[in-house]
């Protein structure tokens, strides 16, 4: 329970921060960075926070089902946009894999050569 309370507390802090400071970042993302900073300061992740985080992350799929269901309905509504969406998702992904893997491979080889 303490784990969930702390996560909700950071989410709330993030929401408040996002609104009060007028930041363009989503509140939950600000909450994530605040929690990351706190963990770095205290030097470890307390067990109850770790457990609650794992439970939420392992069941992330459940939380995404409403949005995933909406995707199908959305595509039916905007049929003209299916081609650009498909091209971006397929070709864009292939190009990003090639780019990322080749770049990092080159950088690591250079790193190793220099000792």
């Amino acid at each position, binding site marked *: 329970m303490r784990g969930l309370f702390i996560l909700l507390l950071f989410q709330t802090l993030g929401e408040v921060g996002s609104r009060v400071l007028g930041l363009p970042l989503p509140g*939950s993302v600000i909450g994530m960075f605040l929690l990351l900073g706190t963990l770095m300061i205290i030097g470890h992740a307390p067990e109850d926070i770790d457990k609650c985080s794992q439970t939420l992350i392992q069941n992330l799929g459940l*939380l995404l089902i409403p949005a995933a269901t909406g995707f199908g309905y959305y595509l039916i509504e905007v049929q003209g946009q299916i081609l650009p969406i498909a091209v971006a998702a397929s070709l*864009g992904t292939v*190009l990003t894999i090639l780019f990322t893997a080749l770049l*990092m491979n080159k950088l690591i080889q250079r790193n190793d050569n220099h000792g």
Partner: protein
Amino acid sequence: MGDSMDDFTALLSCPVVVITITAGAFLLGQKLYILCKRFPLCHPIVIAAAAVTVFLEASGVSYAEYKNNTSILGMLLGTATVALAVPLYQQLHLIRAYARPLLITLVAGAFFAPASAVLLAWLVGANKTTLLSLAAKSVTTPIAVAVTESIGGIVALAAGVVIVVGIFGALIGPPILDRLNIQDKAVRGFTLGLVSHAVGTARAFELDPVSGAFASLGLALTGALTAIVIPLFWLLF
């Protein structure tokens, strides 16, 4: 007679019923995914979304009502985003070993993923709403949802694209890496996590635990960086 049908539909659309249906659909998805030997196309979310769609069509509950009455799941998605700080913190030690290659690849890759998607979509006629919804395509879904909301894209579209990209990348990523003859476990993992977030990370863990750890790092860092850069970028233009 018509009234009792309306009452029945109203009952079917209330929060406890639609959330139970959603949880049941997810459970079904998880079972079928294991039956399909974790083949990425049988991802639990894909099966669950299909099952919920069947329910909505059969019951006459509209998607708008369904979405409205499951809004607590959206709130918890924000909590799960906060929770991502924990695995990010736990993988931070990997950065020290590979600091330079990792950070350069992170910045370049996290820029390349949305830029290539938006450019390709624009070339084949995407409208502004679609472009805004594609910006977060390689980011883990809770962050993608939050970012898309903040820049004014369509959340359902962004979430759908992210899930499709995750599954597609997890399917074609390993064969592409083999074809390029890239054997380094750090490179294989980090690429899968950066491009295909959680689905790619799950795939990387199946291939090798070291690749899996680098994939989690790729997922978390890409999400964190994109979460900051896209809204700021959007503010400037």
